[in-house]
């Protein structure tokens, strides 16, 4: 087997189908969530630590930027879970046709937007 194969993939020249965009978004949100665990653990630790820490966490989350970060994390989490559920369904050979995969990917994006709007209304 030739191990030094030539590779010429100019990703900027591709027109990506929505299933591919859902797939790369699944990856990006996964990496983001890996980092976001620190923020969530720190917040939970602060809130659990003492009544003063609980109040501090509450004050922090009343500010726009921490709220926005939390909303972004929730949006990434929602997308990642929905895309993961789509994967589980596809493991059982549903939604795995061209049209089915397209519809399922669209569904994941639509539900993420709806869920993020609801989460935003909840946080604010």
């Amino acid at each position, binding site marked *: *087997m030739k*191990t030094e194969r030539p*590779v010429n993939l100019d990703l900027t020249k591709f027109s990506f189908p929505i299933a591919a965009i859902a797939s790369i978004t699944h*990856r990006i949100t*996964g*990496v983001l969530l*890996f980092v976001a*665990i*620190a923020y969530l*653990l720190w917040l*939970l*630790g602060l*809130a*659990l630590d*003492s*009544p003063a*820490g*609980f*109040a501090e966490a509450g004050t922090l989350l009343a500010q726009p930027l921490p709220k926005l970060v939390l909303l972004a994390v929730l949006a990434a*989490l929602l997308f990642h*879970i929905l895309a*993961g*559920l789509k*994967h*589980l369904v596809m*493991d059982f050979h549903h939604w795995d046709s061209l049209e089915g995969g397209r519809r399922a990917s669209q569904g994941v994006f639509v539900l993420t937007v709806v869920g993020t709007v609801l989460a935003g209304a*909840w946080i604010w």
Partner: protein
Amino acid sequence: MVSKVTNVTSLTRSGLSDFVIQRVSAVIMAVYTFWVLGFFIANPDLTHAHLVAYFASMPMVLFSTLTVLATAAHAWIGMWTVGTDYIRPHYFGAHATSFRLVYQAGCVALLFVYVAWALQLFWSL
């Protein structure tokens, strides 16, 4: 033909069992996420005592512990997949393998911190 060792850093050295672990851990984490989110949504006037009582109950400590361990396995498989897909000579040149090892060591270090931190947090309530 000499076959190269290419999967030494996957979680279980078997793509098939990594596949299953990725899905089982995902289901555990998804259920935990909606369970905890549901608690926060159902309790808009939450107090410190109520929050501690919720997380300190033994079933919840065990559920949190299970989720922490699931997260460690899930994140490792995911980060490994991303690393081996992108940190390779085509994108990173001749030192790609060194970069990938550093990246993987960084992932392991951060995961270790997360697991130790989270277990300390949940078991000291």
